[in-house]
């Protein structure tokens, strides 16, 4: 066997193993739908049969009765913001979840006064295990009627400039904003209750704000009434497959990028012409190899 053939075989093997690893090895990045670990959103994706969008270009033209879950961890282009606004004004529901990210740029673009404070919301008393995971027990009557009693946040912030009628959930009176980041309440630091979720009508659609996207991760979704809360926000009447998650504004590691590229490639090759081309290439290569071998024997 020639050296070039050995190299070719090794290269092919490496490519195949890499592709298999990329495809099969689960993501470990926060909020990734492929991540089955504590910080992924695989459970949410499967529960709500959510479609992952790698670009806001994929937003449906008819957004009515569809919910876009946006976690704003990367800056938005004006084009993206415009698409989000169209989505909402045409009847879609935007569930904007943020804590320390770029949610305020979306709110500014949409013309809403509400803002994410970006300050850590701590609750040393009403919490799960420690003050970074505040328990929320005050909800609007509508949510209380739907049976939501308590939910748990995880490294959350709060909302500000929200009208009383728009707020749907508040933190407890013992919560505070840790302005000086010393993890304890000081006299100058504001004390709760603070709004942590709010709902606004915009055009024909709705914008819902939640000051912590972590309630959706695998390890948090089943804590207390978090699932019911998420279901309420996404839309209790929504049929499976009507939920869209924006993956384009989440930080990704190289493996996630590769997986997305691989998925796109697979999608591309599932189209008729590329599939035909690929089959032709495989046929030609195999035929050439077989013919060559046969002639060699003769």
């Amino acid at each position: 066997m020639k050296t070039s053939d050995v190299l070719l075989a090794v290269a092919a093997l490496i490519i195949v193993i890499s592709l298999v690893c990329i495809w099969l090895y689960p993501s470990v990045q926060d909020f990734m739908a492929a991540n089955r670990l504590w910080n992924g959103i695989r459970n949410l994706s499967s529960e709500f049969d959510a479609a992952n969008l790698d670009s806001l270009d994929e937003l449906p033209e008819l957004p009515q009765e569809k919910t876009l879950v946006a976690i704003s961890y990367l800056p938005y282009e004006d084009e993206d913001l415009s698409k989000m606004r169209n989505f909402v004004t045409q009847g879609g529901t935007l569930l904007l979840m943020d804590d320390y990210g770029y949610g305020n740029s979306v709110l500014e673009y949409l013309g809403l006064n509400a803002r994410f404070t970006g300050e850590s919301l701590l609750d040393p008393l009403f919490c799960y295990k420690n003050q970074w995971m505040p328990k929320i027990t005050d909800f609007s009557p509508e949510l209380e009627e739907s049976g939501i009693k308590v939910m748990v946040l995880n490294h959350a912030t709060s909302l500000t400039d929200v009208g009383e009628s728009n707020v749907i959930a508040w933190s407890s009176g013992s919560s505070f904003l840790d302005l000086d980041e010393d993890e304890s309440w000081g006299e100058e630091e504001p004390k709760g209750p603070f709004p942590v979720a709010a709902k606004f009508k915009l055009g024909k659609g709705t914008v819902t704000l939640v000051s912590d996207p972590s309630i959706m991760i695998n390890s948090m979704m089943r804590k207390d009434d978090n699932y019911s809360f998420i279901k309420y926000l996404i839309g209790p009447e929504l049929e499976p497959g009507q939920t869209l998650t924006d993956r384009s504004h989440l930080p990704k590691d190289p493996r996630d990028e590769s997986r997305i590229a691989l998925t796109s490639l697979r999608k591309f090759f599932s189209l008729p012409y590329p599939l035909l081309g690929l089959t032709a290439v495989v046929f030609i290569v195999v035929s050439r190899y077989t013919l060559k071998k046969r002639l060699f024997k003769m």
Partner: protein
Amino acid sequence: MRNIINHLSKRLALVAIVAVLVFCASPVLGLEPVSQEDPEAAELVFSGISLLRYYSSSLDSVLKKDAEETEAKLQKAPFANIPECLMEATGNFAAKGMDISRLVVNIDENLGILGELLAQSRLEESLELASEISDKLTQAYGDLDGIEDATEVTGEEFRATARSRGDLRRSYDEVLDRIERIREMLDLYKSLMADTLLGIEELQLAEDLQSTELTLKVEPMTAFVGDYIHFEGILASEGECLAGRKVDILLDGSQYAASVTGADGYYQGTLQLPYWYVYQVEVQALYYPRDEDIGVYLSSLSPEVELEVLFYEAELELTVEEEAYPGQETTIGGEFDYGQPLLPGGRKVEIYLGSDFLVEAIVQETFEQKILIAPETEIGYHTITVSAPPMGRYAPVTASAYVKITRATPIVDMDLPRIAMIPGSIALNGRIYSEVGPVSGAPIKISMGKSQINLVSSEEGTFDARVKMAMELSPIGSQDIQIQVIPREPWHAMLSTSRSIVVVNMVSSGGILAILIVLGVLARGRLGRRRKVVLSRMPAGGVIAQPQLAQAYGDSVVIPILAAEKSESKHEPRSRILNLYRWTVRLIQAITNVIVRPQQTLREFFRESRMSLGPSARFFEQLTRMVERLLYSNYQPTEEDAVKSEQLSHNIEEGIKR
């Protein structure tokens, strides 16, 4: 100089390394906000300061005499993150805190009432209420002790008492301070109570105070709400009638009417029964000394008279449509069941959607009322409430039902040809409607491949359009027509649907056909050239190729060189036939590349080469059978057989050439 540079560069390198380390470690060091942590791996941390502050805040609400606020705060206690050993203490604190807040409010109110009773010389009632207040005060002190115990347990658990200062100690002291202030408040109530009791005692000891007696008679004893009833009675003191004294008539303990006694102490009057839709009302007459009577007489309360109250009750049954649409009217049906024949002429009803008032109307016993659902109403289940306010003898009645508010999904009824041609266009016409009605004036977008048209439906929901087929590569196949409808009416949902159509691309198909023809022609030419090459390889002389030894079980076979001539007429028929067969086999091998394997029989070779020979296969089969007969039997071929074999060989050759 070099030393300085060396020294500086070392320092710079050190600074750079430290900077890189800080940059890399910043998330770990908490310099960047962490967006989440694994809840299962999270550290369990309790905050004594927060718990004690929560206690203080709750006790502040007790001091404010705001029972609702206290309850709202302490009801959250089960959600607090506290050590297991403090669960009971915190639970006790919450239970006793809520109890004491209610007691404080009650004691405060009753002390005021007690003062009034005493002022009116209502001795017996004062004694009864004073006893009740005393019991509640005792209970409140007990609760406060419980609160103090729970606080001490909490303080010990967090070692607050072990410290002389600090936030924890301060928080603990603040709770104790609140407890002390509540105790002072209770002490104050206790002293007020003592003062009142002194007043009662004075009243009891006053020997010159004359007792009074009051009678009451009510007629009729059964009456409808709103009816007038007659009351009368006599006010006397120690056998002597009291004239010109005001007597209050109490309904369920509240002053409702009054009368003044005549010269004989007799009082009477009528009162209209209030529209209280209760089955029984307690009526009492009350006299208490006023003006000059103060210090002379004691108050008196007549025996209770139980008045039976009548009114008409109804049950209201609602029926609503299963689904209602925003911007559309929906019908609510209702039926009042009064359980008796006397019915009101009409009844006012108020209809609410959730908490929003929609409409009011006067309805009959059975009614149907149309209501308009606001266009902006959210999709989902809503409560419709029909409330009939009280009307004279008819008690109020309320009923609710759930209605699902949804949007109607449009249906596209479209005439679509089964096959479309490229180039060309297809006519699309149809109607868009739903169970609510036609989708009028709705923008419609129809796209098919690269073609797209926008149109608007008519008032009847119809549309008529022609889509020009865009040029594509696909020769023939199914293609989707995407239809998007954005209705203007709020009761219609947006629609995105697709239909399939078979598209024949005449240009592509023609092109492919032309290419196939060209390829066919080229292939034929190439085959011809190859045949010529093969034929040219045949040796010119009549030398019969010598048989070659084939390696047993070998994979490869060397194609023997073709004999120069097929056969020679001078040979025996047997030799001629065999020679012809060998020649034919070599010809087939050369043309088709089918190799004769060492272990292969003649018939197996025929089967293998049959596909490649096409129509000539049947001639080769006959030739094979003839040779088999020669080889495997005693048959002696005739001249006729030899001629036939020549003919067969010729036919095979001609067939291959073609």
